[in-house]
């Protein structure tokens, strides 16, 4: 199925929740959707007969400076097509519904995005740091992150 067809199905189902899309001249065609609808959309694209996106290839956090984002790379093992969903949330209230209930693999991916970007995945069963130590302060991949002078008595800068 082409990206245009996938987009049309999404648009027909969710209407205004699908904000914008770029489907041509990009390596991975994507659609930007409303953050608070992502769980519904995820459940739909996984369950729909025509789409069957049964594989979440990657879930990444993004810092757009002023806004935070999450990008979902989806693939269908059945139909051999792929698509990308993107959401954006304000940095001061980075709440995104967790899609862990749709794709189990999102569990650790969302923990990673929470760890490094501070995205709050609501409804996640176990949202805690996965890479950094539990007592780490801040979220290092944010653009405004300042490297601390000391961590547990160890000097950090060179």
């Amino acid at each position: 199925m082409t990206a245009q067809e996938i987009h049309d199905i999404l648009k027909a189902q969710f209407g205004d929740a699908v904000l914008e899309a770029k489907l041509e001249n990009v390596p991975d065609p994507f659609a930007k959707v409303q953050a608070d609808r992502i769980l519904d959309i995820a459940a739909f694209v996984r369950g729909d007969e025509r789409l069957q996106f049964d594989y979440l290839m990657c879930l990444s956090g993004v810092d757009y400076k002023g806004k935070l984002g999450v990008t979902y790379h989806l693939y269908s093992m059945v139909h051999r097509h792929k698509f990308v969903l993107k959401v954006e949330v304000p940095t001061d209230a980075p709440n995104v519904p967790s899609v862990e209930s749709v794709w189990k693999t999102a569990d650790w991916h969302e923990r990673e995005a929470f760890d490094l970007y501070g995205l709050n995945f609501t409804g996640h069963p176990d949202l805690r740091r996965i890479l950094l130590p539990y007592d780490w302060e801040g979220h290092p991949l944010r653009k405004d992150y300042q490297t601390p002078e000391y961590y547990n008595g160890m000097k950090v800068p060179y």
Partner: protein
Amino acid sequence: MGLLDQKFESSNVVITTMDDLLNWARLSSLWQMQFGLACCAIEMMAASASNFDMMRFGVIPRATPRQCDVMIVSGTVTLKMASRIKRLYDQMSEPRYVISMGSCSNCGGPYWEHGYHVLKGVDRVIPVDVYVPGCPPRPEALIEGLIKLQEKIRNESLVQKKAV
């Protein structure tokens, strides 16, 4: 000891100093704390494998700090790992030695500027005897570092140091 084997016609007495005997014993069986942190560990494993065969120097990898004489810090020391390294080092019995292998554990390596999570040199948490440069160092370089450590041990002394 192989040098002296079967060389005497009757049982004999060999005279040496305590320093020489102990140093010889120590430097000839440097059991190695076995853990790799990054790509340097691949070279360390290659140094242990048959082509380079570090075991001919008496270096045997051990999986517990309590049986080890030398810790080879091979790879990037993250801040999360640094406290573990300190704890492992504290669990080793004395005399204990540390070889810092590769740029990362020497000084932070390529992470020196933007590595918010990397300790800029393992010598910030534990004392280091020998630094092996390289990114990663070849097995020959690690073995040279080991020989340098053996030279250092050979010149140690039991005699109490006098204030100058």
